[in-house]
């Protein structure tokens, strides 16, 4: 199996293990405290990554708008969204909390693409959303009868839409929408990443390489284009063009 796929699978495994550990820890810490400690650890790891792998001289060139929107998105998502998710996790099994969050985020990512990037939803997209919503329903409202009273009270609208969906999505939108709508996003790829919930600042500066978008059948696709790799490059200045700063 190629190294890229292996890396993704390893990342999902690490995410899952840390999710399980988080469930254990949330019983010992207040959600806000645990969120702050986790964010501190994440920031340290990101700092090590930046200092060891990136061209540090490029960092001052990151536009102020990106920094401000990144901080705003981080405050809302990590500062508000994460503690609220942890509050939800404290009262609900991780086998329910995590899938519900993942399912809702995928729906909101699609909505962001439609509303911000002006993507046209296909019949498959709508069908996919219906299937995901069914899954969320089965895991939340459908499980209320089979759980204890406390957990059942959290597996309703309160837990699903307020604790997980709303606040986190606001954070994602504050960053992603800000970059994309103001036209300050260096590439549409980065807008998609931001909307999908990845907050690493200025990937293209840190990781190097060029990213381009192309259109297939009226629908925007995102991908990584490198030398020697097949890909369709958008026309410079065209609707789907991207600027690499």
């Amino acid at each position: 199996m190629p190294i890229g796929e292996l890396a993704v699978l390893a990342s999902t495994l690490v995410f899952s293990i840390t999710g399980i550990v988080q469930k254990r820890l949330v019983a010992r810490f207040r959600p806000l405290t645990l969120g702050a400690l986790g964010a501190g650890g994440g920031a340290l790891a990101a700092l090590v990554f930046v200092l060891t792998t990136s061209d540090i001289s490029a960092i001052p060139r990151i536009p102020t708008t990106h920094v401000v929107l990144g901080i705003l998105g981080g405050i809302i998502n990590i500062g508000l969204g994460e503690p609220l998710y942890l509050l939800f996790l404290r009262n609900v099994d991780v086998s329910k909390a995590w899938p519900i969050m993942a399912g809702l985020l995928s729906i909101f990512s699609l909505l962001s693409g439609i509303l911000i990037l002006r993507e046209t939803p296909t019949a498959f997209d709508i069908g996919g959303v219906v299937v995901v919503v069914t899954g969320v329903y089965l895991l939340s409202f459908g499980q209320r009868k089979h759980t204890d009273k406390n957990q059942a009270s959290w597996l309703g609208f309160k837990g699903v839409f307020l604790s997980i969906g709303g606040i986190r999505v606001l954070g994602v939108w504050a960053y992603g929408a800000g970059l994309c709508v103001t036209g300050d996003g260096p590439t549409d790829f980065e807008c998609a990443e931001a909307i999908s919930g990845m907050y690493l600042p200025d990937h293209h500066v840190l990781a190097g390489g060029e990213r381009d978008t192309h259109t297939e059948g009226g629908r925007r696709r995102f991908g990584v284009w490198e030398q020697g790799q097949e890909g369709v490059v958008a026309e410079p200045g065209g609707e789907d063009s991207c600027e690499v700063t």
Partner: protein
Amino acid sequence: MAHRDSLRRRMHYRSGWSFRLSGVAIANGAGMLGVASMLFLVGIERAGLSISAVLGSTQIFWTTMLSVLVLRERMNLAGIVGITAMFSGITIILLL
């Protein structure tokens, strides 16, 4: 009596705080927000966003499996169907 209970709860919080657990929480955050995100980024760079996103959504299965095995959480048929539906839906959105 109520005052004594309140004091006991506060003492429990204080005694519950440990540097070792705080270290675990920080390391866990570093693993989740640092290592896992970096690996995912490498995956996007090497394999492309579409494949990475679909493979990334298998996280639902990993987490559920681990929670059942490690935390002894219970999962009934409706829950299994729900998780499978969610994974299928995400795959449909991402691939088709």
